[in-house]
């Protein structure tokens, strides 16, 4: 995909982005709401025409009509906010969407993959949000696609249901499928993705493995001393970088090189030694914060 862009009237939703996916990887397209994730994904799914640039999906050109039908046969899609047909059962829904292709995977096998065996004959409308999303995943896989697009598959789910979806995505990865995932959850990208591209205002602002991104843009590690209270501050050695009190009485200390041992030795003989002490790596949240000056969650759903 090269220099792709999409305008809606005067709004530039996607502004000249370029990236590529390797076979068998989980690629996460990470960005806040309105960043241009869905627009990009839908261009790749041949649902929207780009206003500039080129994109190839599985070596087919998204702008060529004859190539589009080849793409459709080979990709699996879970649209953002997708719902299957309310009054069809889980199994009927899988077979319904499966019948749109020349070949479909065995529905029992898919039901097993998304762990819905005991809900197989329940109507879609009776399922909880997490289970519905798993039906959506099964439906996205029904043609045994080489490339799967999942647009915000866990948005709006409770933590437990999110984990279940993650688990299914991990299984897909084990099966060797290439997965294109969009999300505005940093932890999701960090947990699932081999490669992450961060998109903001229609532009890619950073790309790489989660580790590379954190190393390059995450900033310092942080030492956290839990429930130390304001009193705890006086036990810290002088000259270390600005300690902060967060969550009432947790102490946060950004670590410069070599400071960790200095601090640990200094507090070894004080009451702080009995507290819960943790060294935190920066996360993709910090990466986004450092790159944009904003937190993703501030503008989340």
């Amino acid at each position: 995909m090269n220099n792709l862009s999409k305008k809606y009237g005067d709004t530039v939703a996607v502004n000249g982005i370029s990236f590529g996916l390797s076979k068998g990887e989980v690629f996460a397209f990470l960005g806040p709401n309105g960043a241009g994730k869905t627009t990009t994904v839908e261009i790749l799914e041949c649902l929207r025409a780009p206003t500039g640039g080129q994109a190839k999906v599985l070596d087919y050109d998204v702008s060529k009509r004859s190539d589009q039908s080849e793409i459709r046969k080979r990709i699996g899609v879970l649209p953002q906010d997708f719902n299957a047909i309310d009054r069809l059962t889980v199994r009927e829904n899988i077979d319904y969407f499966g019948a749109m292709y020349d070949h479909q995977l065995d529905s029992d096998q898919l039901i097993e993959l998304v762990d819905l065996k005991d809900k197989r004959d329940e109507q879609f409308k009776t399922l909880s949000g997490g289970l519905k999303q798993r039906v959506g995943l099964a439906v996205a896989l029904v043609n045994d696609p080489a490339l799967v697009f999942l647009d915000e598959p866990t948005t709006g789910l409770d933590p437990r249901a999110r984990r279940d979806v993650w688990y299914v995505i991990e299984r897909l990865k084990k099966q060797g499928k290439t997965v294109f995932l969009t999300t505005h959850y940093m932890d999701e990208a960090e947990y699932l993705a081999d490669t992450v591209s961060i998109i903001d205002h229609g532009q890619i602002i950073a790309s790489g493995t989660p580790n590379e991104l954190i190393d390059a843009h995450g900033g310092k590690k942080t030492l956290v001393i839990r429930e130390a209270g304001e009193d705890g501050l006086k036990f810290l050695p002088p000259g270390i970088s600005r300690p902060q009190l967060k969550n009432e009485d947790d102490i946060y200390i950004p670590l410069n090189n070599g400071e960790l041992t200095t601090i640990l030795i200094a507090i070894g003989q004080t009451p702080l030694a009995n507290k819960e002490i943790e060294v935190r790596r920066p996360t993709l949240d910090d990466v986004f914060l450092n790159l944009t000056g904003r937190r993703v969650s501030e503008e989340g759903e």
Partner: protein
Amino acid sequence: MSRVYTIVKGHVKTWFRSKSTIFWTLAFPILLIVLFGAIFGTGNTRFDLYVQNQDLTANAPTPSSQGYVAALNHTGAFNIQTVPAEMSNPVSYVRDDAQLHNRGQRLLVIPVGFQNNLTNRKPADIQLYMDQSDQASPSLAGVITAVTSSYAASLSNSTVSLSVQQVPIVTHNTRYIDFFIPGVIGMTLLTSGVFGAVNTNGRYRELKIIKKLATTPLSKIEWILGMVGYQMFLAAISITVILLFGRFVFGVTATIDIYTIGLVVAAALLFPGIGMVLANFVKDADGAEAAANAITFPMMFLAGTFWPTETMPTVLKVIANYLPLTYINNGLRDAMIYLEPAQALTNTIIALGLAGFFIILGSVLMSWKEE
């Protein structure tokens, strides 16, 4: 083709599992039939007789003709309705009036010169228009002949020759319920077509089902064919139920011919076409449903579902001419009840034309992919 079949099957299953759609497509029409059948009655058509007395002097019936009508009345066998003498086509007047009031279609005409012929001892004829297949016809004709000869005998001059000339006419002895059943069919096709299309195109878009389907090899045409196929299925089911009910509860005999089928096919394209046009102008599904209500209800009342459009004020009659349902209703009546193939054909052609227009417009307007 198997994709279209899958879509039809999906819609049918959804329909079958939803109590409210089953109610609107099957139970509600039956309920209306029972209700209107009870209000307007099914009528007793046995002894109705329309009489037109054309024998006038100075704008009043002649004494002889009046005497004859009185003799008929005296038997108590007839429920006599007078047809104004100036009515130039009394047979068609009787047909319309009889249906509206659930009466039998039999007409007795006393011709001009009735009294003159009697006084001049010339033979005088009275015309009796009736349907030979009318079950009451032999006994009615018998009573009328008997009354006529005794009236002739009672005249002072016994050599007078007075005879009843029978003119066969074809009547369908239609009652209100016969008129109403095709209307209910038209109404059901209208509502299930418009609301079905708004639902499958508006609601499925909101649920991202259409978006999902657009990423598969399914084409827009196949999707629309699936929806139309489902409408045909619904039409077949509801017409069968309505006709069987009308047949066994009210004795309505309806003919299913090529025009009936043509009209039903037209309706299964026309009304979903209108629904698709709505769903594309009003993007959110609830708004489209409100628009569908705003269009179907007035159309139902103005297009002659519940009463003949001829009985409405002129303004409304003109409006009725612009409503697609009018042609479906009229055509269904011509084909199923009145057995008027020429009129049925005209209505079928108009309905098919409108159907082609709306389904093509709806299909062109419908965006399958995103903008």
